[in-house]
């Protein structure tokens, strides 16, 4: 007997091919389509419990499942949520919210002011193990309650079923915006253990199931007070790899997809009519630690700004997906000043400043960055530019926790990073990033300490006068630009693709701003 030779191979190949074809036909037939929408997250959310949501993924899911007193629309405008309207007193420390009476949790229970208070207290309770309570700390007594020093929060008062009054420790005009953050989402009283795994909310979407690292399935809440979603279901797949996300979109399995920076040109060529652009409320920057070595000198910091060819970098490496930054407040936020010119690329000027500061031959610094591919090109380009000034930049690439620890401990000279808006307000781009009380963990990675800047930042966040706030925010941003605690790079532009049959979806300006209510598939 001989083993089969010759014709057996093509036969095998033929049967394999037809087998694959058969399987392929099933695959296409089985693909979930119809009235449902498909979204994705790049990582499994930590939890669906608002008290535990400290990551973007959790925050986005919480916005679909729950309601806050107030919320952001897709353009990041603050709009009524569970509260129909709200007002503050003349001192700016007492905020009164008037609740709507038709809101119910998905299990049918009514939402009244007592439920809102109970929910906020739960988020503050040390037993909830929340790591993200700071948005509630302006409330009088909240900080003490959270640290277990006090058994009550005097700053939350419920005069009747439909009114809740907050007393703050100091005037704070951004307070309503803080209440739109995920941690302030309202949960039903006494949630059972495992609530974060199978939550009951009140939002436009009802929780159906969650298979970790695979998908979260949501169904429309037909009784939603704000109008039921147009689609029947929203499946949120967990897809970590950006190129796989693109493939899923191209095969029709995702309703929308974000286009990574490296893929911009391909998508602009292949599917221009499906793309949406939106300047993100996001800064890309290199923070210079103003307490370390030569970087203490403002002339050196300005020299680094002058010595970096940001325009070429943005055009060649980032496909022009950004607005040059001349400050930290991005376009679309009060206080952004489009008339201020960014630092030009001026190596002669940079050398002169370095000479004046006593570093005619440059110096050595370390630039820390995490492993995001987007940042690699930026770091290398800046290294090359600064090399022309004699500044020797050593790039240190580590995983995000290592970089974060080093930067927050003040051990990094330069830090290439970004900052996303939690809420759309100039305060979010000034107080955490540059106020001296926020050095390190708070967000002030440059360890900047400037008393006049501090004073302006505090005035801007406490004044009830919106015109005064705008004027101050502009002045703060100008001062920041002048002090040059960062190498100012750009405000990135988001690009998303939307399936031609998906209508009503727009890129949200803040991550909680897209609730998928008016989105539908049109055949």
């Amino acid at each position, binding site marked *: 007997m001989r083993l089969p030779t010759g014709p057996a191979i093509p036969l095998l190949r033929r049967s394999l091919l037809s087998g694959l074809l058969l399987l392929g036909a099933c695959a296409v037939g089985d693909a979930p389509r119809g009235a449902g929408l498909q979204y994705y997250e790049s990582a499994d959310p930590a939890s669906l419990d608002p008290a535990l949501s400290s990551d973007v993924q959790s925050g986005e899911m919480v916005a679909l499942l729950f309601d806050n007193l107030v919320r952001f629309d897709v353009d990041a405008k603050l709009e009524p949520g569970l509260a129909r309207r709200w007002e503050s007193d003349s001192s700016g420390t007492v905020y009164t919210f008037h609740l709507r009476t038709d809101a119910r949790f998905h299990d049918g229970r009514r939402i009244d002011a007592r439920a809102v208070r109970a929910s906020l207290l739960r988020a503050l309770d040390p037993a909830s193990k929340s790591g993200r309570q*700071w948005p509630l700390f302006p409330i009088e007594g909240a900080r003490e309650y959270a640290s277990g020093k006090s058994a009550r929060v005097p700053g939350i008062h419920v005069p009747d079923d439909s009114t809740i009054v907050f007393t703050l420790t100091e005037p704070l005009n951004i307070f309503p915006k803080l209440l739109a953050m995920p941690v302030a989402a309202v949960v039903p009283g006494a949630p059972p253990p495992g609530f974060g795994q199978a939550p009951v909310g009140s939002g436009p979407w009802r929780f159906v199931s969650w298979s970790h*690292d695979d998908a979260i399935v949501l169904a429309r809440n037909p009784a939603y007070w704000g109008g039921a979603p147009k689609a029947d279901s929203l499946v949120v797949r967990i897809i970590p790899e950006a190129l796989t996300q693109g493939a899923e979109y191209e095969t029709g399995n995702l309703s929308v997809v974000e286009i990574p920076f490296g893929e911009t040109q391909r998508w602009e060529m292949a599917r221009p009519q499906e793309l949406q652009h939106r300047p993100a409320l996001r800064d890309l920057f290199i923070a210079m630690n103003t307490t370390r070595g030569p970087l203490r000198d403002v002339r050196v910091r300005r020299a680094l700004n002058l010595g970096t060819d940001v325009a070429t970098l943005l055009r060649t490496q980032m496909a022009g997906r950004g607005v040059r930054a001349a400050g930290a407040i991005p376009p679309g936020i009060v206080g952004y000043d489009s008339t201020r010119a960014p630092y030009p690329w001026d190596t002669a000027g940079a050398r002169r400043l370095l000479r004046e500061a006593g570093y005619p031959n440059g110096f050595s610094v370390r630039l820390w960055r995490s492993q995001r591919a987007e940042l690699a090109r930026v770091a290398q380009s800046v290294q090359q530019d600064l090399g022309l000034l004699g500044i020797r930049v050593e790039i240190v690439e580590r995983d995000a*926790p290592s970089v974060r620890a080093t930067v927050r401990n003040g051990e990094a000279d330069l830090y290439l990073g970004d900052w996303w808006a939690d809420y759309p307000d100039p305060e979010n781009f000034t107080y955490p990033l540059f106020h001296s009380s926020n050095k390190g963990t708070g967000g002030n990675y440059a360890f900047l300490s400037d008393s006049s800047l501090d004073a302006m930042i505090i005035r801007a966040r406490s004044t009830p006068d919106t015109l005064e706030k705008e004027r101050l925010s502009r002045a703060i941003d100008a001062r920041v630009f002048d002090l040059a605690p960062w190498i100012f790079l750009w405000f990135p532009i988001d690009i998303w693709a939307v399936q031609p049959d998906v209508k009503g979806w727009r890129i949200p300006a803040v991550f909680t701003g897209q609730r998928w209510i008016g989105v539908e598939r049109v055949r």
Partner: protein
Amino acid sequence: MSRFLLTRLALLVPTLLGVLIVTFLLLYVAPGDPVQAMVGERADPETIARLRAELHLDDPLPTQFVRYVGGVVRGDLGTSYITHRQILDDLLHRFPATLQLAGAAMLFAALTGISVGIYGSWRPGGFVDRASALGAYLGVSFPVYWVGLLLILVFAVTFRWLPPSGARGPLYLILPALALGMRSVAFLSRMTRAAMQEVLQSDYVRTARAKGLGEGRVVLRHAFRNALLPVVTVLGLDFGSYLTGSILTETIFSWPGVGRYVLTAIEKRDLPAVQGSILFLSLVFVLVNLVTDMVYARVDPRVAYD
């Protein structure tokens, strides 16, 4: 055999204790703070201090270690800092997916690799042999993430035959199994071919042929069985490493297995999740090796452990 099994099982305890100590120390010296990951981008020092105290992170290292081992002995791998879920539950929830993928990849690798290897050794220098040499060379050279993306591009995006990623049925298993198993196909085919070539030269094969046995019987029953030992070694090692998570394959194909769980835990410095996963996966790896050793004895009666 049973004494051998008992000894090996008893040896598990010091092995796993060693794994525990090494992981614990490594995580302790690694930079990065779990609490910083818990609180996100913006936090106040008070919250950080409170969480550190609640998690006993400020206790002396030996105290932390003893507390952890105490939990492990009771079968408690602890709770994740980030998700606040039981780590053992999360691992057990994901392990079936990993088992499926590893099984499919090994099945594909074993069927393809061994048949190509046998055929190549039977007709050395023939077309199949030379093609398989080239294939093996490419198979070990191309990184799995590149092959994975290529497979998605060709079979999912261009031809639309298979879904790009996810885990919703047998069809979803094909591409990741191909990508993951490819390296094993290469190894197995070369290993089988080498072992078979040696055996096919031996006297008993000539005797078998001289007796007038059919060629299929000679090759598959007489020769292959004796060439099986090194093949079993490769199978066991690869299966063990696939079972302990294939981070790249799982990431590219959005496959919900333990590899991605470990990766997320490391990225977020979720210390108990990292420790628990490593302990769990070490146990799996050691057990697979044990099974491989027992298969040796089954394959070759000359291998006796007692």
